[in-house]
């Protein structure tokens, strides 16, 4: 399979200062193997776009402890006390977005849409410095689309072309992130021959996927 790469090939794809989207809701659907690979890379000063920053020492929490993350854009970091402390200490720049605003901004980024207007956070502390617009009889907050240099995502299976399917709620942010980065690397549990995934079940068509890393689940 042409898109299948190794750790040695992954590492140079993510460079200092890159903006990286990382799939997952907590650790569910997070590309934990790819994150481990980044942990072994000298890369630093990353801007990470991810709903959370893992848990203390787990998932993205590892990269945070290694001080590889300069800025985090996401919706909920309370579940990682290290992230909260790093932010308070001024060691981590944080941009909090309502979860739905973040998800839609990613979808817009992948769809060639420049920005969106959304009601969430109107007239709250979170939107204090943001542009607002009245459409009809409601107020909306302006949000630029989100894009990244690289997206690292987690899928369940891919075929040898790179078509992806997901498992249960491990889907979460992975499909929209697969559309919104220049380079997309998918971690999968299994690779099957083309034709074994039916056109009806494919969620992420192969045109979005540049590279694949295989990590079988323990016991599988």
């Amino acid at each position, binding site marked *: 399979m042409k898109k299948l790469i190794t750790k040695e090939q992954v590492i140079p794809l993510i460079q200092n200062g890159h903006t990286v989207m990382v799939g997952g809701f907590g650790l*569910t659907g997070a590309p934990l193997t790819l994150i481990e690979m980044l942990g072994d890379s000298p890369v630093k000063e990353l801007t990470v776009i991810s709903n959370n920053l893992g848990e203390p020492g787990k998932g993205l929490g590892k990269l945070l402890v290694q001080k590889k993350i300069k800025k985090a854009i996401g919706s*909920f970091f309370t579940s990682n006390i290290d992230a*909260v402390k790093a932010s308070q200490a001024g060691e981590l720049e944080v941009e909090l977005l309502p979860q*739905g605003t973040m*998800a839609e901004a990613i979808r817009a980024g992948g769809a060639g849409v420049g920005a969106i207007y959304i009601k969430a956070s109107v007239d709250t502390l979170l939107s204090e410095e943001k542009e607002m617009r009245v459409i009809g009889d409601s107020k909306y907050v302006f949000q630029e689309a989100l894009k990244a240099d690289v997206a690292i995502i987690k899928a369940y299976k891919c075929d040898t072309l790179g078509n992806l399917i997901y498992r*249960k709620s491990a*889907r979460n*942010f992975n499909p929209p992130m697969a559309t919104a980065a220049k380079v997309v690397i998918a971690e999968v549990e299994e690779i099957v021959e083309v034709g074994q995934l039916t056109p009806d079940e494919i969620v992420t068509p192969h045109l979005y996927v540049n590279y694949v890393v295989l990590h079988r689940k323990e016991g599988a």
Partner: protein
Amino acid sequence: MNVKQIIASTVAKHLNEGEIVNLGIGIPTLVTDYLHDDSSIYIHSENGILGVAPVPEEQEPDFDLVNAGKIPVGINEGASFFDSADSFAMIRGGHVDVAVIGALEVDEKGRIANWSVPGKNVLGVGGAMDLVEGVGRVIIATTHTTKDGLPKIVEHAHYPLTSQRSVDLIITELATFRVKEQQLILSELAEGVTIEEVKRKTTAKFIIELTESIEEISVS
């Protein structure tokens, strides 16, 4: 029943058959324990599930299938999975009828604060703002007072508000309040609870219109 169970079971009584209900983290996730087996209420979870059910007994927890609180759940027949962008499109687009969420404080206009505690180790907004702006009815499920016994239903919120929108119902272990035209109305008392006790533990102004049967107030 403990306090959380009292609150969750009261919330369940205020849901109408046929409604699509999003459950937030904490006490709201317990609501599924109080829906009867042939209920036509479907539970939506922000991380991409419609049709959340309790984990079936004797089934191994599956960490690819979790609720908004990242706790393993089950699904019922007819359930579906979707990505985070679609999930919040459902919320913002008005396709979810009810949201049940927690709150740090509710002010006397029925507005909530539930995402930020200045000076504390809290750094996240999650899906709260999207839900309060987007869904038809918002039900707050919260303990009546803080762990230190301080009122949570207050004249003015000390913490930053989640939205300018007033919620529809506030359910605690002591009482249920309706919110009408930005005014709190005490509509139900839990068994053995007196109006005096509610007054003592509530600093927000409210009027009293106790309802005989729950059915009368479950339609907003």
